[in-house]
């Protein structure tokens, strides 16, 4: 096995579980909507718990703590909720080398001091449009389009990452 650049990163791979896309017609309504929904709707490039801002007017609600029908009703015409879980694979990167792995895979400034825990980036990695959620200094979640998952994981293993699950 090619040892890449001696990245110290472990990959934990699994299905996303539940994942809802929340679209608002007007992002300025986010605070009001958040209050009605009972969830935080973070600003651009940010995450708040299990809620990730992934577009100008789109958030992701990750996990099983969200009731789709309840959310749809609470939105009251200000937006819609759609299920998207089947299209994504969750990869957790752990270790001091995850930023290096990301920067070998794409053109993103993962070394920027501002790209710390709680930040989110939507960026191509190994040709696939991925969502990166920084969880800690040595850990991030990467959501990979399911069809590209084999390709990305294989590429990252070749770069030195080690799959642990």
């Amino acid at each position: 096995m090619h040892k890449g650049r001696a990245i110290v990163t472990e990959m934990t791979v699994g299905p996303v579980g539940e994942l809802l896309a929340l679209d608002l017609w007007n992002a300025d309504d986010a605070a009001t909507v958040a209050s009605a929904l009972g969830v935080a709707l973070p600003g651009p490039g940010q995450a708040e718990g299990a809620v990730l801002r992934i577009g100008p007017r789109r958030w992701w609600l990750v996990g099983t703590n969200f009731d789709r029908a309840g959310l749809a009703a609470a939105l009251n015409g200000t937006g819609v909720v759609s299920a998207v879980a089947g299209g994504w694979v969750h990869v957790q990167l752990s270790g001091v080398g995850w930023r290096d792995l990301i920067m070998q895979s794409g053109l993103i400034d993962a070394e920027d001091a501002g790209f710390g825990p709680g930040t989110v980036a939507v960026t191509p990695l190994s040709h696939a449009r991925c969502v990166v959620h920084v969880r800690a200094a040595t850990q991030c979640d990467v959501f990979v389009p399911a069809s590209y998952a084999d390709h990305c994981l294989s590429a990252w293993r070749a770069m030195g990452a080690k799959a642990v699950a």
Partner: protein
Amino acid sequence: MRDAAGSIPFTFDGKAYAGQPGDTLAAALIANGVRLVARSFKLHRPRGIMGAGVEEPSALVTVGEGARAEPNARATDVFLYPGLVARSQNAWPSLAFDVGAVNSLAAALIPAGFYYKTFFGPPSRWMLYERFIRRAAGLGKPPQAPDPDHYGHRSAFCDVLVVGAGPAGLAAALTAVDAGKRVILIEQDAAPGGSLLRERVTIDGEPGVVWAANVADRIRAGGGRVLLRTTVSGYWDDNFLTAVERRVEPGQPAEGDAQVLWRVRAGEVVLATGTIERPLVFANNDLPGVMMAGAARALALRHGVAPGRRAVIATSHDEAYRTAFALADLGVEIVAILDSRTQASGPLVEAARARFVVHAGARPLRAIRRGIGLAGVDALIDGAKRRLLADCLAMSGGASPVLHLHRQAGGALEYDAARGGFLPGAGRQRHVSIGAAAGEHDLSAILTLARVVDPLGPGSPPAPGPLWHDEAPGKAFVDFQNDVTTLDLALAQREGYVSVEHTKRYTTLGMGTDQGKTGAMVALAQIADLRGVPLPDAGLTTFRPPYTPVTMGAFAGPMKGDHAAPIRRLPLAAAHDALGALWVPAGAWMRPRAYLAPDETVAQASLREARMVRASVGVVDVSSLAKFEIAGPDAVDLVAAVCATPVAKLAIGRGRYTVMLREDGMVMDDGTLWRLAEDRWLITSSTGGAARMARHLTYVADVLLGHPRAAVVDVGEHWAGLALAGPQAAAVLSGLTGAEAPAHMGLGDAVIAGVPVRVLAASYSGERAFEVHVPGHLARAVFDALVGAARGLGGGVYGLDAMDHLRVEKGHVVIGAEADGRVTPADLGLGGVLRKTGGYVGWQALQRPALVGPVGRRHLVGLTSVDHTPIAEGAMLVMREGEPPLGHVTTAAPRVAQDGAIALGLLTDGATRHGQIMLAWSPTRRSTVPVRVGPPLFYDAQGARYRD
């Protein structure tokens, strides 16, 4: 002092030598007395070491063995490692006795552009000529085996990128780090220091090389990234630069990546790229032993190697005088310093006069050859020719700032008459040139905050004397790598190749790996003189990336083998593998082409599968189809804009075939449209057009409709899709769901194998059919249930080829083949499905007279092979062989329902040609098949089989 025995073993042309740590291959070869290193490109003249770094034009060697051999490596840019194997190139049978050297004797017959005048005739003859030309001349041979090394790519971002770790670059990088900036410092050498590596100055009380290493350490300690052995290969738009880092030397096995291609986005770029010394032009100036004065000084001061025993220094400025001191201190006898200036003075010159013989107004006329090397110099001294015996001639005709990156960035150039060269002018991006690259020569001025002590004192800035002359017999080289002489340039001018761009192509000036690094300014001077214009008016060629050669492996990086291109896998890939699927790429996707039974061909399997669908039921994976949910109060407006078919009256729970147009009215995609709820719609479209459709939906929403209250959610990957088709399809579905199957173009929710699914009743095969949509990560159980139930009724799985056979027989179009971007809905026979009230994208364009009138348009037609012979896809449709084509075959297939061969095609005025017999003619496939033109429908014209 060098250890005479050396400590690093290496070989050159099979002979064992030893060098010392830090040696370049060039330094080690000279230290071992090897002066002949290469043969020149065209004339096979003997060549030695001329430069000291990447500017070396002549000493090209192949380093490494087998698949790891790297041709055309500059001996001056390869650092020694134990076991290094180097070979000369372009010489046979040996470097010392090279048969190709006969070219030199016949040089008069092969001047610049000789092949343009010699090799006439039909193009095919060039294939013959080329073999001999390439064998007679050229560079090293690339290895034939796959490269065993790995190459990496890495992005990097910084506030300040400094290119060049000479004194100016080091100082700039340190200043930026101290100011809290994110800094990257890139240096192509193995050590920081640049010119300090070949000088004796002290800075702040430390030797220059020590000061440089300490500054580099301080930059690292301050958070800066210092990349040594890294060359910036290109400066692109928006301060984006690429750089190649060599982690190992050429031919050296690597633990990890052998090289890394860095992709750097910088806030500011500081170009501290230094200068390249210019040669002097005189007869035989390419002999081994003739070298740049700076290179001779680097050999002496950096490596402790004497380039000869008796040296002549030829110069037009003070700097080369330093070489005399450096060589003399190593025991080299300085025969004389030839200074082309008639009035030279200053501390450096005076110090030299006190120690050496200095001739003012003197210059070399001709290098004298003995064997393969330099024996002496005929020089013009005091107006007379004198012969000086020497085995080393260190020359310097000034220095040219390295402006490649500045120019690649779009920077302007300004001509400096005093320096006889160009300096960087205004930049177009956020970059600045500093130090010697900006014309600054004085180290104290560059390091304003440091205390610089130069034991020889400051010299005058490098300035050119006469840049060229060829008054003595013998070849005077301007471009050493490409064997371009003053005579070649004069010939090009005489023959009308006046523009420097034409001169370059006619003579090969500035081509090859050298790209004119040493010879460009000298050549421009001669061209200007020959044209009688000032040098700046001679013109410049383009400074194209890469600055130095970049191996293809670095470009490819990790994208090789299985990673050469991204492969998209279906969510049920493992299930298809278990069924023995034969995979076929469909865009980036891998899809099952067929499921072969033992001893079955693909064609046999596909036809068997298609007939299975017609007879009972089949399951095909259509997960790769694009799927978009459009939701929100204004969703209907967005859907109506994108889909050219009726929309508003579509009832909830119903769907219909739809077609999407570009703004020019041409068909962009097709698929189905479903109303899931009052304000939620589902559009399916082609696999290959998924990304285009996603962009189109966003464009229509954001640009044409101005952000309606509608979300476009790409659910293509969320939903796996399994098409169930055949007369038993409804029975299979009902058996699994316990409910009646939806009517044709109806939809409903159901549960299969405990998994909630969505069932869409739509047919692409001509049979009663359904698409079962299930979240991708839950699809396996549903797939297994469907396949199991289908098999119970005599059915099974089918692949892409069978699906294609079925749809051709039914006359369904596919995006790319029939809908090739040049056809309207009417051309495809779909005019009747369009929304009569318009209002969709492309509607206005369809009103153009050229599209309204049917005459002259290509129409979709069906083609039946008259004699049952298979029809070639892509074949031209002609009345007789050799006549202009009236159309072409878009897709061909065997008949499924009966024997025979059919096809779809696009045919000019095809709708009026039904019943005609034409030829499907493919000269490239040597196929001519008579075909009968008809409507594009071969099966169940009434549509009875797919309705309830």
